[in-house]
Every structure is written in C-alpha cells, then in structure tokens.
C-alpha cells in the first residue's frame, strides 16, 4: 500500500509535534482568549457606546465584528512565522530538506508536504481561536465552520509567499523585514480591527492587494451572515491565486536551493 508522498513528508513534522502538542494546544487557546477579552471588553466598551461607530460596524457589538478577523490574523501570523525560521532550518540548521532531497522524493513532493504541514499547523491555531469564539454568545456562529477553513487558506497564502522568500534567504536576519514590513502593517491595516473604509483612500490598496483583508472579509461575512455568494467568490479567488502561484514559485526556488 502506498501513501501519498506529501503525506509522508508531513509525517516527519507530525513526529516532532507528538512531543510538543500539549503546550501548543494550551498556547493556541490561551492567546485568542486573552486577546478577545482584552480587545472585546476594552476597546469594545468604547466603540459600543457610540452609535455612529456601531453603525459603521454594521450594527453589531465590537467583539462580534472583531472576532472573525482574529481567525484570519491568527492564520496570517502563524503561517508567516512557520514559513520563516522553520523553513530555513530545513536548509541550514537541521538540513531536513537536504535529507529529503537525497531520497526518492521529488522537489514538488517535498514542497507539497511542507505546505500540507503548514496548513495543519495554521489549522491547529485557527481551530483554537474557533473554539474560543464558540464559547461566547456574541462571537458564536454556525458560520465559524466555514470561516475556520477559509482562514487556514488565508494563512497558507502567506506561507507560500514567505516560504519562497525563506528559500532564497541565507541569513535569518532577513526575516525581520517580513515581520516589520509585512505582518505588522497588515495586522493593523488589513481590516481586522476596523472596516478599511475608515482608512484614508490612499491606504486602502494595501488591504486590497494582500490576502489578509480578503480572508478577514470572508471570515466576517460567514460569521455574521452578511456576505453574498459572488463577493465571497471574488475574495476566495484572490486567496487561491496566491496559493497556486506561491506554490509554483516555491517549487522553483526549492529546486534552485536543493539541487545546486
């Protein structure tokens, strides 16, 4: 009986996770809980007391508006981080990609396996957020069942781009740029904390061209049941395009790095 090559690559990562999953689960639940309480209660009490603000959010409490965005931002942050240092480790510190390349695995199989793993990894944390959101009446929604997988894809779209970047980086100091110039600005300007219509027109394209805003919109649309089918399809297409193109680029760069 044969197993899909990508799954066999995934097994390597899963073997490592078997040692650490308990701490990860605790972290994965604790982080969104703290965040939700802090932002929902703190910022929420300010926002909810102003009628014009509530109107701008579509008439829902701030915490209901914020919560779905948390799914997408968590996915982005996990996807981005997991495709920096852990990817470089495979080339440089641990050399597990080199080890894989010497076996019968092909570069594409290695790349697919890695992304299958990254999706799992993002999934663990996004599911943690989903569980936390299901605990509270203001954030609970059947739409979460759709929002969680969509958020995973959103995180994966970041992972494909940043893993490609990691595949050409020689030093881990380069990852500081990812954090400072991509993740932090998007976290703030990607529409997770306020509708991007609140931003000056000049800044809105930042949200449009990167996958985070599309992920946030989808998660929010599903959770609050406010999204039409065609709009959803448009957002979805952007995220999928990032993933498809990202994986193709990543494969090329892996070949260049591993098969010198």
């Amino acid at each position, binding site marked *: 009986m044969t*197993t899909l090559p990508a799954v*066999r690559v995934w097994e390597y990562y899963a*073997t490592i996770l078997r040692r650490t999953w308990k701490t990860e689960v605790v972290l994965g639940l604790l982080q969104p809980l703290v965040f939700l309480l802090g932002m929902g209660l703190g910022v929420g009490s300010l926002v909810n007391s102003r009628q014009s603000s509530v109107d701008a959010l579509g008439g829902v409490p701030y915490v209901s508006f914020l919560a779905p965005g948390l799914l997408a931002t968590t996915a982005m942050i996990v996807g981005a981080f997991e495709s920096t240092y852990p990817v470089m480790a495979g080339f440089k510190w641990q050399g597990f990609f*080199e080890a894989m390349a010497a076996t019968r*695995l092909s570069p594409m199989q290695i790349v697919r396996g890695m992304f299958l793993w990254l999706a799992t990894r993002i999934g663990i944390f996004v599911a943690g957020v989903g569980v936390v959101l299901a605990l509270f009446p203001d954030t609970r929604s059947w739409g979460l069942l759709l929002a969680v997988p969509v958020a995973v894809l959103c995180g994966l779209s970041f992972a494909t781009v940043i893993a490609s970047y990691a595949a050409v980086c020689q030093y881990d100091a380069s990852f500081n740029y990812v954090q400072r110039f991509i993740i932090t600005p998007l976290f703030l300007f990607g529409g997770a904390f306020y509708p991007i219509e609140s931003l000056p027109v000049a800044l809105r394209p930042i949200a449009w061209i990167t996958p985070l805003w599309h992920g946030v919109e989808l998660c929010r649309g599903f959770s609050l049941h406010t999204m039409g089918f065609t709009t959803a399809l448009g957002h979805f297409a952007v995220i999928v395009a990032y993933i498809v193109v990202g994986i193709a680029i990543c494969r090329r760069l892996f070949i260049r790095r591993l098969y010198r």
Partner: protein
Amino acid sequence: MSDGEAVIEARALVKRFGDFEAVKGVDFRIERGESFGFLGPNGAGKSSTMRMIGCVSPASGGDLRIFGLDPTAHGSRIRARMGVVPQQDNLDSELTVLENLVVYGRYFDIPRSECKARAAELLDFVQLTDRANSRVEPLSGGMKRRVTIARSLINRPELLLLDEPTTGLDPQARHILWDRLYRLKQQGVTLVLTTHYMDEAEQLCDRLVVMDGGRIVAEGSPRQLIERHSSREVLELRFAAGTNADQTTVLAGLGDRQEVLPDRVLIYAVDGEEVLGEVHRRGVPHESALVRRSSLEDVFLRLTGRSLVE
C-alpha cells in the same frame, strides 16, 4: 576493468558554478560490488562529483549514467536505489535515533511497521540498539555518523555514497566505522566514498581516483598507485626549524627523488635504511629520522606537489 556491470559511468563530466569550474571533465566507471574512492584535498571537486552521482546536482556537461539511467530524467528512480551519507550529518536532533530512521524510511514509501523492523536490524548492525530511544542531540560525533549510516541503509540500497565519512572523528570511532563499511562491502553493496585521508582510502577502496583542481590525476588500486608513482620506501628527516631548504646540497644525490616540505624532508628510495646510513656517513645533523613504506600521501604529493591535509 571493464568486464563487470557498470553501476556508475561518467564521461567528460563537468560541474560549473557560475564562472567557477569545480569539476573539469572527469571520466570514471564504477562496477557492481566495488569499493571506489575519490581521494583529494578540499576543493578538488570530490563533493561536487558525489552530489552529481547522488542526483541532487545536475551536471553542467558530459554524460553520467547511474544504474544505466540518466539522473536528470530519472533522479527519483535512481535515488530510490541508493543510500547517501552526506558530509555533514543532517539527522533530526529533536527526534530519537529510531524515529530518525523510521521517518527517513517513510520517504521511500516503506510501510511504517517494515521501517521499524529494518531500523531495529540496522541499529544492531551499527551497534546502537541500546540508544534506539534516546534523542540524537546528545550522541557523540561517531555515534551520529553511525546513525546516519544506518539511516542510509533503510531502503536496502545497492549503492552507498559516503562523503568524507570519518572526517572529524577520533581514531577509535573511525575504526568502528571502517569495520562496518567493510562488512557492507562483503555483503555486496557498492561503496563510493570521498576522503582526504590516505589511510582511509587504503583501508576501504579497491580502486580509487586521485582528484586535484577538478581533474582526475591518477587512477588504480592503492597498491598500483603507490608502485606507479612512488618508491617502495621513504626516509623522513626533520631538521632544526627553518633550515629544511638549506639541506639540499648536503643531501644531493640521495635516493630516487626528494621532497622538501615545511616540516620535513622526504627522500624516496627502494631501501630507506641504506639512505639513512649514507646520511649518517655524510655527518648531516638532523633532529629525527624515520624510514617507512610509501603511502598514498606520497603518491598525492608526487602528482600534485602538495600534501593532502593542508
């Protein structure tokens, strides 16, 4: 040397990195069951050649066939039938010894239960059964090397590539490794290794090529190479520091050939003791004298004018 079945065949093989030509057109043929070595200093092109054979580095020119297949078209099929021990261990230090082997076996699509059975067998072979469940990280360099060798055998390869298998290991660890590799050879595994240790090449290789500056400068069995390129014996003389070059006149005419190295003067001769007697008769003051048999180191020195480990 062309009656057996060729496992690897290279003709005019070239590897370029940008403007730099690491391998400048080499020819070799390695037969099934043979133990074949690439001997040369760092930068000779050994590792580049090994990576091309390992199908993880496309050739820039020439022709390469492994198991009769073209590595560019059939890399995966070829790699499925070979084992690789890279120059630097790339074991996963967070996993246990056993997990490392099982995970690697899975890359070859060997069922998990079969991986475990083979891993147990292989850990017995490399004498690490008692460490099966310990993490890799605290193991000694020699043990890690043995784990890497066990891992490389998980797919029962017909061909095993070893890139500097004992570099950086202490003498005892090296002897354990040599013994294990010798057993593999007896089991019929084709061994291809690179080394810059002449004693390793003499211990393990039926046949070897000497590489220097990306070219093959000699080929043969260790004995043939020594007979062809060196004398039977060598007299090594050490003089007071910095005076080696001054000895040429007093030593003139002794032996077949002389090499002045930074730390000693080598005099090649059929009978080293006889030359040493002459040195004494001439009253040449020296700090120490040693007569030994010629080794591959001498062959290398003769062929390239440099010593192997610099």
